[in-house]
């Protein structure tokens, strides 16, 4: 789905951001790209959909070289949710805003009407709302609805839940997970919130100073304290606690796991 081949990139000649980076992401995967501020996460996500181009090497999206395909064409394969929904909202009503992306991509008008209606319903949005005066969470939901209306095969989320409250965050992430599981949509999520990553991502890619420190299943990476420390990210709390408890807790990753393990241990008469 996404393939980086020896990619180097820098915003200016003097300061390279990425150096000879190679990795790939399979179709249907849910990958979290984690790392500290300035590690290069947003840069990587913008390389995928051709908003940025590598200075060396190649980026392939669905086999298409991003150097040779304009990003407006790549947009058909790849939906992108930015941290700030206000950069994209430009129509007076929610329904026009949602139809906007499909119109830009040249969808037939009857299909646009169908998709708009469906998406309004799944995202619980009122078609006549004036988008600019809705809350932050609602604006982010409008932006996501507009992206997903186009049914992209790949969804990139760049810190999608920053500034959202807990419920709004869960709501957005549940939609995304649903799409990933039911429709096989590939998801690449940029985040530094390890709790979020732990709960939703299948695989993790750890980034530091433009280099990949590790790539693997979320549960494995969460207990790889060394790598996380090097990447300056705070591990999720339950996996870390489990790690400290020792070997007996090696399969514990969620609150439920932890509860079961603790109850089991108490039942056996062991000390907590």
């Amino acid at each position, binding site marked *: 789905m996404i393939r980086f081949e020896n990619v180097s990139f820098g915003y200016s000649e003097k300061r390279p951001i990425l150096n000879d980076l190679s990795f790939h992401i399979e179709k249907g995967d849910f990958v979290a790209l984690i790392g500290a501020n300035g590690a290069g996460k947003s840069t990587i996500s913008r390389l995928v959909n051709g908003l940025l181009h590598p200075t060396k090497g190649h980026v392939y999206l669905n086999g298409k070289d991003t150097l040779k395909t304009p990003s407006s064409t790549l947009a058909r394969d790849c939906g992108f949710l930015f941290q700030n929904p206000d950069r*994209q909202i430009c129509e007076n009503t929610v329904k026009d805003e949602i139809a906007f992306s499909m119109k830009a991509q040249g969808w037939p008008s009857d299909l646009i009407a169908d998709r708009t209606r469906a998406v309004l319903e799944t995202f619980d949005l009122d078609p006549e709302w004036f988008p600019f005066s809705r809350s932050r969470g609602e604006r982010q939901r409008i932006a996501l609805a507009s992206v997903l209306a186009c049914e992209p095969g790949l969804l990139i989320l760049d810190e999608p839940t920053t500034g959202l409250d807990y419920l709004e965050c869960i709501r957005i992430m549940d939609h995304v997970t649903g799409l990933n599981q039911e429709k096989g949509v590939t998801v690449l999520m940029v985040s530094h919130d390890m709790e979020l990553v732990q709960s939703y991502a299948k695989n993790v890619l750890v980034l530091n100073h433009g280099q990949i420190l590790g790539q693997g299943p979320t549960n494995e990476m969460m207990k790889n304290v060394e790598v996380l420390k090097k990447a300056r990210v705070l591990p999720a709390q339950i996996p870390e606690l489990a790690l400290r408890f020792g070997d007996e807790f090696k399969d514990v990753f969620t609150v439920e796991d932890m509860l079961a393990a603790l109850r089991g241990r108490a039942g056996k008469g062991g000390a907590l």
Partner: protein
Amino acid sequence: MNLLNYVPGDSFLHKLNPVTKLLAAFLYGIAAIICGNVFAEVGLIILMILISATCGIAKRAILLTRNLFFLGLIMFVIQLFFVRDGEPLAVIGGFVLFTTGGLKSALLLSLRVIAAMLPLMLLFAITQMNDLCNALVKRLHLPYRYAFIVTTAFRFVPIFATEFHDIQDAQKARGVDFDTKNIFRKIGLVAPLCVPLLVSSLKKVDVSAMSAEMRGFELRGYKSGYKEYPFGVRDLVTVAVLVALIAITALWGA
């Protein structure tokens, strides 16, 4: 490269009082406006580029001249067809397309636009907006409110440029094709770029106004700043030279 941001340095012009720099840019503009000779106008543009070279911004001056050239070209075309005195120059089937008078005044006007705008644009390269604002308040006792409005407008230019770029990226990611050659499509692209820019600027204004208010914006007067902006010999010399320049262009270029 941003053509309007500040370039640090310690050349003669950098060290001038900000008020003098503003005045000098205006005087140079006046010289360009009263100048009525095509060659003198070209001379003024070249002189400005040479002056920029003394502050290490010759490259920027040349780039700016090139950009202003397009503005000049628009003026040229308009003027060419609307001024009708002098001998007919181009005639199509009995209809006089343009005349010698039209050509002459079009050439002059477009060069004048370039020569008058260039010093104002280069002012940004050697003046920090904060300094200009403070100096206007301190030396001319301009109300802080008005000085602030003007300088803030300029300070926001690069911020808007970045914001504009990010908005364009966001719309590209949705499939909007900005490279289209179709002129009607191109006009349709204005809304997705300008609406988010407008909304975000209005939000910024609101927040900035509140934070300025909370830091005692209302109370600020010409005695508030600690930094003095004295006039020196340097400033006197600069103004004298520019007055002489105006006199020369008035006499020679009439």
